[in-house]
């Protein structure tokens, strides 16, 4: 039996058995938390929205029908909606303060010897933070989840080919950003 079939059986059982829903929760809680964390930028809201995501999933699991959409994509879609509501409620479009939040999350684990590398990452984080929300979301889904392009497309309401194309264009923009940042640094040094 494939893992997809196994998961479908679990989901069907979870519709009537709370303990099985608990198994699904344990399987996905960290992944959903990661996604929400990088979309909100702080642990407090990440916990709140992760909890809301699973409460909603539990209340609506009877309505879930696979039809080619895996349970994980359904969960990420719920999380995505929770995050969208969160941004709307607060009217703050600062989707990810990546530069701030990642520095904060790794401050304790990165030793002094890696400061230079950390600075380089800081440039990248700032560049990511300047991307439109949709592109930030794509990078987060791409690198913090195990979703396929098709599944990411289901979460973001786009086709698989559109996701591939958006990913490519996003990397091009980031490369430009990094190159221009490097050039500016050189100008400063030369000047």
């Amino acid at each position, binding site marked *: 039996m494939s893992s997809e079939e196994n998961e479908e059986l679990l989901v069907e059982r979870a519709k*009537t058995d*709370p303990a099985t*829903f608990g198994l699904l929760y344990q399987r996905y809680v960290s992944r959903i938390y990661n996604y929400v964390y990088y979309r909100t930028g702080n642990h407090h809201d990440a*916990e709140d929205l992760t909890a809301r995501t699973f409460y909603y999933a*539990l*209340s609506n699991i009877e309505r879930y029908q696979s039809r080619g959409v895996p349970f994980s994509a359904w969960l990420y879609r719920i999380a995505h909606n929770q995050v969208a509501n969160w941004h709307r409620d607060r009217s703050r479009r600062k989707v990810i303060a990546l530069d701030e939040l*990642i520095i904060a999350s790794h401050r304790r684990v990165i030793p002094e010897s890696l400061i230079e590398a950390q600075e380089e990452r800081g440039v990248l984080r700032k560049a990511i933070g300047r991307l439109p929300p949709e592109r930030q979301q794509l990078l987060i889904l791409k690198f*913090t989840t195990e979703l396929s392009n098709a599944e990411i497309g289901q979460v973001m309401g786009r086709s698989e080919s559109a996701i591939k194309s958006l*990913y*490519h264009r996003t990397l091009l923009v980031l490369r430009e950003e990094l190159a221009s940042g490097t050039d500016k640094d050189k100008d400063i040094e030369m000047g």
Partner: protein
Amino acid sequence: MEDRVLQETMDSQANGLSVSDENQGLHTAGISGSHSELESLMVVAEKVKNALLPVEPSPAFVRGLHRNLLAMAGRNRPRTPAYARRGLLIGAAALGSALSLGIIAYVIRARASARAETPVHG
């Protein structure tokens, strides 16, 4: 290099980065200088992956939410599952329809027999 090929290659690399961290740094190896476009994008992808390192929720939060979800499930879970409720509903509707048809047939028959038994005057 065509955009589509580039997209596919970048996508494969990203999937590789997502699946295993052990292979980081190996994805750009073996790409010749003529593929510098691809190579530079792969380097950017690896940097993004490194910037989005996994974060762990606190164990207390995970345990607490698990407990709350199970409690909520115990309170709200209907005793009969959806498919069973749907079956009951369909069964009840079918029974109701059959009963209605039976009553209508009975009434028609009763009227017909009453008409037949009524003596013809005159």
